[in-house]
């Protein structure tokens, strides 16, 4: 794994790169061609991995918490406040707090990222389940659906649009926050950004990594919108 070398050159291949690399203008296509394979592409793949794992674990945890919060109403407020609290901790501070316990590892990064997804995922799940029309629930009971059948066939499908709406926000914000992971581990699209940040900022690398982060977020959002259309065809039938 490529570590950060103290005092190393801030501009990659300083003095031997292409002309535009040495002049360090706003954009240098030559650099992009030369370093897509060894810098940007691996960072992008790592970034996708970090985000997927965070949203996946966050989603699973939120499902468990929401089941508890919906079933035992008394616990809803405490769970909500806890998720609120996690959400308000500044991400850099949270990394600092975790490092003494979990070190400079992926675990540290994931704990922080998962914490930020919980609030929005939990709130949307609970809201979605509560918003199920009471007449549909009464009909379900009256027709002899068991509690489990009512949950799986009526409540969960009807809450799906709200749950996916939460998933979209959580995913986009995770992809954005995951750039800060580079403070802890040399992975993700944050890494090229940090590398390029120095006394003499290498603009192309920052712009390219930033643009990739934004594009990834938009793509993920688009995929989720598409998913919602496919799994809830009824929500836009009028």
């Amino acid at each position, binding site marked *: 794994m490529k570590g950060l070398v103290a005092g190393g050159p801030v501009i990659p291949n300083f003095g031997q790169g292409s002309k535009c690399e040495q002049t360090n203008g706003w954009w240098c296509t030559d650099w992009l061609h030369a370093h897509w394979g060894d810098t940007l592409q691996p960072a992008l793949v790592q970034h996708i991995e970090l985000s997927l794992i965070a949203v996946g674990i966050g989603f699973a945890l939120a499902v468990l918490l929401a089941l508890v919060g919906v079933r035992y109403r008394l616990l809803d407020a405490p769970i909500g406040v806890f998720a609120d609290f996690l959400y308000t901790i500044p991400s850099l501070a949270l990394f600092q707090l975790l490092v003494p316990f979990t070190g400079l590892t992926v675990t540290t990064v994931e704990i922080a990222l998962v914490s930020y997804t919980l609030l929005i995922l939990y709130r949307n799940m609970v809201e979605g389940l509560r918003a199920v*029309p009471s*007449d*549909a*629930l*009464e*009909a*379900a*009971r*009256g*027709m*002899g*659906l*068991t509690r489990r*059948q009512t949950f799986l*066939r*009526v409540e969960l*499908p*009807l809450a*799906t649009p709200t749950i996916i709406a939460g998933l979209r926000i959580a995913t986009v914000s995770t992809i954005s926050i995951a750039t800060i992971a580079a403070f802890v581990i040399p992975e993700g699209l944050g890494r090229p950004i940090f590398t390029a940040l120095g006394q003499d900022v290498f603009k192309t690398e920052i712009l390219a990594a930033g643009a990739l982060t934004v594009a990834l977020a938009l793509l993920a959002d688009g995929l989720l919108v598409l998913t919602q259309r496919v799994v*809830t065809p*009824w*929500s836009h*039938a*009028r």
Partner: protein
Amino acid sequence: MRQTEPMSGPGGVERAAAEIVFDGATKRYGDAEPAVDHLSFTVPAGEICVLVGPSGGGKTTALKLVNRLIELTTGDIRIDGTSVDALDVTDLRRGIGYVIQQVGLFPHMTIEANIGTVPRLFGRSKAWIHTRSLELLELVGLDTSYAKRYPAQLSGGERQRVGLARAIAANPPVMLMDEPFGAIDPIVRARLQDEFLRLQQEVRKTVVFVTHDIDEAIKIGDRIAILRQGGKLVQYDTPEAILESPADDFVAEFVGHDRALKALALHRIGELELRPPTDGGPRAQRSTTVRDALALLIAERAQTLAVTDDAGTVVGSLTRDDLLQ
């Protein structure tokens, strides 16, 4: 399409309508006055019993005691001789059609899937449900193209027709209907009532029907149970008997001072002895109620009514006096 599974009850056996017996049925919440107080009456198999009364009369509570959405405190309710408490609650409910005012269709399911809810619980195949839902859509007067639509794409009246179709999909012997037409505008409501009665001629369920509207009770019910505050049964009889001789002042006031006029709505002009056809005058079909026919004569300032058959051919006539007999 060839039918491989029988279209009858879940066991594949045609289930006849069942008699419902309320036997001292009582519901009490805590130490408060009972919501339903020692209700005892019998609904004969295949008949419509309307529970009617002012709010606070415990009509809906009494209805929900049957499918145990509310549990009895004391007393018993038997369907076809079996106590509702003797059955597993989900089995009980799957054998009872349930229609509510807000309909309660599942917004995320197509009309076909909604209608197939209970058959699916009984393990019916998709093909069976598809055939059955088309058959039921026709039965409740909707085009079969509705099968693939979602509830949001239907009007209020159409949704309640689907609610009705869903309730009878698994061919239950008993139906509970809680103010099913209460949220529907008067014109559509009257049509739905007519079609429900026509449907009942075909399916012959034992129906318990709740309404606060005495006119609806008179029109729909084979028998009417009048409840008053505290869930007490005041009178249980046929609409004719209740209009003719109310049990007490409460019933007399509840059915209204125009009960003699209301009684005219119980008969259709086709049931009367017709005079030979005459020329001119307003026309009415044989299925028109005596009350509506009289209203028509008064509105048209006419003395004689031409009675037609379903095709519109004049088959006889009636005078105002004939209608008032």
